[in-house]
C-alpha cells in the first residue's frame, strides 16, 4: 500500500506542475496573449475580427498577438471573471454584467462606460422576431404576441441576457403605446399617467408570457427549440441572431420580422483594468477595443449582423437593417440597475407573472 501513497504524491506533483506551467505568461516583446471573455452570439464576429486585429497589430508594432476566446452565457461569464478568470477584455451582452465585475470584484474602474465612445458599445442590435414560412399567423408587431392563438418562444430572463432585452423591449413598447412620449417617465407632472401606463405594460408583458410554452435557459437553446423542434409560432431574439439563423440554418420555413418599435440593445466592452495592469497588456487591450470602432471593425460587425455605429458603414449595409424606432433601456426602465431590481430580482415583476 506504500505503492498508493507514492502514486498520490506523484499525481499531486503533476497537478501542481501543470498549474505552474498554465500560469507562466509570456511577456517578452515579440508576442502577447489576450483573453477576450465574451457571450454566446459573438463567436463568429470575434473569430474574424481577431484575425484582422492580428494582422493590424503585427503591421503596426511587429508584435505577434494570440487572442484567446471564451464564450458562454453573459451572466456566467461575468461571474467567472469576478472569480478569477484572467480576462484582459470583456465583451458582454449588457452593461449590467460589466458593472457587476466592477462592483463585486473591483477589477474595473468605476466610470468604465465613459472610457470608450458610444457608451462603450461599439455595435448595437435590437430585438426582432423569427416566424414560420409565409407568416401564417400574420405576426407583424408586439401587439400580435398577446393574441391567444400565438405561441411565443423566448428564453428565461432570469438566466439569459438576451431574454432581458426581449422582456424590456415588450415593456418599453407597451409604455410607449400608452404614453406616446417616453420622456414623461420620471417627470413628476405625469406621475399618475406613468403609473397607469406601467400597470398596463405589466398586463401586456404578462399576456405575452402566458403564450410562452417553454422557457429555455439560454438564447441559443430557444432558437433550437423554435427551429429544430418546431415549437412555437414566433421566436423573439437578438436581431443579429435572427439574421444569422436566417442565413445559417435551414432557411426554408422561416421568415424574419422586425417590429416597428423595439429596444436599442447595447452590448458593451471594457478592459479589465486590474488584469491588464498585472499582465502588462493594457496597451494592446486598449488597441483591441478601439479596433472595434475602426472601419474594419465596424465592417465586420455589420457583416455579422450587428448594427454598426459608423454612419459610413451603416449606409453601406442599409438594406440589411430595417429603419425602426428604437428606445433605450434608460428611457423605459431607468438603466440596468433599476431594471434588475424592479423586474428581474426574486419576487420582481417577472416572478409575479408566475405566482399562483
Amino acid at each position, binding site marked *: 500500500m506504500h505503492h498508493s501513497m507514492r502514486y498520490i504524491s506523484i499525481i499531486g506533483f503533476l497537478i501542481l506542475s501543470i498549474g*505552474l506551467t498554465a500560469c507562466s505568461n509570456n511577456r517578452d516583446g515579440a508576442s502577447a496573449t489576450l483573453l477576450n471573455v465574451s457571450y*454566446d452570439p459573438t*463567436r463568429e464576429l470575434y473569430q474574424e475580427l481577431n484575425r484582422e486585429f492580428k494582422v493590424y497589430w503585427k503591421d503596426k508594432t511587429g508584435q505577434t498577438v494570440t487572442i*484567446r476566446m*471564451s464564450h458562454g452565457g453573459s451572466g456566467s461569464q461575468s461571474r*467567472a471573471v469576478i*472569480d478569477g478568470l484572467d480576462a484582459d477584455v470583456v465583451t458582454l451582452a449588457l452593461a449590467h454584467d460589466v458593472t457587476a465585475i466592477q462592483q463585486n470584484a473591483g477589477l474595473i474602474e468605476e466610470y468604465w462606460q465613459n472610457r470608450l465612445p458610444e457608451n462603450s458599445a461599439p455595435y448595437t442590435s435590437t430585438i426582432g422576431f423569427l416566424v414560420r414560412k409565409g407568416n401564417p399567423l400574420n405576426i407583424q408587431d408586439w401587439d400580435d404576441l398577446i393574441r391567444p392563438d400565438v405561441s411565443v418562444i423566448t428564453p428565461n430572463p432570469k438566466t439569459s441576457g438576451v431574454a432581458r432585452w426581449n422582456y424590456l423591449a415588450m415593456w418599453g413598447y407597451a409604455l410607449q403605446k400608452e404614453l406616446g412620449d417616453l420622456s414623461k417617465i420620471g417627470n413628476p407632472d405625469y406621475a399618475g399617467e406613468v403609473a397607469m401606463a406601467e400597470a398596463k405594460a405589466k398586463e401586456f408583458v404578462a399576456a405575452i408570457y402566458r403564450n410562452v410554452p417553454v422557457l429555455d435557459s439560454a438564447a441559443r437553446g430557444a432558437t433550437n427549440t423554435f427551429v429544430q423542434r418546431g415549437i412555437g409560432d414566433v421566436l423573439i431574439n437578438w436581431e443579429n441572431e435572427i439574421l444569422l439563423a436566417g442565413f445559417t440554418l435551414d432557411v426554408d420555413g422561416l421568415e424574419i420580422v422586425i417590429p416597428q418599435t423595439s429596444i436599442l440593445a447595447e452590448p458593451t466592452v471594457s478592459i479589465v483594468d486590474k488584469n491588464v495592469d498585472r499582465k502588462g497588456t493594457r496597451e494592446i487591450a486598449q488597441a483591441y477595443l478601439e479596433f472595434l470602432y475602426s472601419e474594419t471593425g465596424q465592417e465586420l460587425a455589420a457583416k455579422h449582423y450587428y448594427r454598426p455605429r459608423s454612419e459610413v458603414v451603416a449606409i453601406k449595409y442599409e438594406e440589411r437593417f430595417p429603419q425602426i424606432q428604437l428606445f433605450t433601456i434608460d428611457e423605459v426602465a431607468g438603466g440596468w440597475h433599476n431594471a434588475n431590481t424592479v423586474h428581474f430580482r426574486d419576487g420582481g415583476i417577472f416572478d409575479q407573472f408566475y405566482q399562483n
Partner: protein
Amino acid sequence: MTGTVTLQAKNKNRSIVQTESTTESPLVRWLLIGTALVFLLLFLILPLLIVFREAFSGGINLFFQALTDPDALAAIRLTLFTAAIVVPVNLVFGVCAAWAISKFKFKGKSLLITLIDLPFAVSPVIAGLIFILIFGSRGWLGPWFLSHGIQIIFATPGIVIATLFVTFPFVARELIPLMQAQGTEEEQAARVLGASGWQTFSRVTLPNIKWGLIYGLILCNARAMGEFGAVSVVSGHIRGYTNTMPLHVEILYNEYNFTAAFAIASLLAVLALVTLVIKSVAEVKITGDQIQTKL
C-alpha cells in the same frame, strides 16, 4: 492454498451447463429479453442513434474534419489527460475504502458509505461552485495560490479536481456491496496459511472482485470523460485551452455546427467503448492467469 482451491471450484461451477431446473421457460426468457430491449431502445439506443445520425449527416469527410480541428484535438487531449489522472486516483481510493468497509466491523459504517455516496447527489453546478468558493480569486485558498502564481480554477487543475469530485464514489460503491457479499472467509484462510497482506489481496481478493472493479473503472472513466456541469463552471471556456470534449460539444452546438458537435459527442461514446475492449482483454487475461495458477 485454499484460495486457489476455492477458485477452481468456482470456475468449475461456471462451466456447468444450465439445466432445466436453473433456467426459465423460453417464453419467460424471451419476455424478459424483450422487456430489456424495449427499455434500452427507448432510453438508450434511440438517443445514441440520434447522436450518430447527426454526426454523419454531413458525410464522413465533415465528420473527420470536425475531429481533426485543432480546438477539437486540444479538447480531446485535455479530456484524456484528465481521465488519466482521475481514474487511477479514484481507483486507489475505491479499493481502500471498499477494503476497510467490507472486511472490518466498526461503528458508523452506514454513515461512511452515505458520505461516499454524497458527491452523486451534489448538483454539478454546485460541485463546480464549491471549488470556486475555495479556489476562486475571492475564495478561501484562491488568493494564496494566485499570489504564488498558481491558477487552480479556470485552468487544468480545477478541471481535474472537479472531475475527481464528481467521479469520487464510482469504484468504491461498485466494490462495497460485492465485497460485503463475499465475506472474509477466504482472506482469513489465506492469512492463516501464511500469506502476507498484499498476497492476500492480490491473489485472493482481487480475482474475486475483478468484475466489480472493472465495471467501476469503466463507469468512472466514462463519467470522467463525459462530465459537463461541474467542469463547465470551473473551466473558463477558453477555446483550445481549457475546453474539455463535452464543453467543446456545447460550443459547437451553440455555433449551429450540429454535425461537428455530434461528431465529438460520438467520439466520446466511442472512447467509452474503448474501455470495454480493455475489459474484454482483461477478461481473457484473467482467465488465462487462473489456468496458470491451476496448473
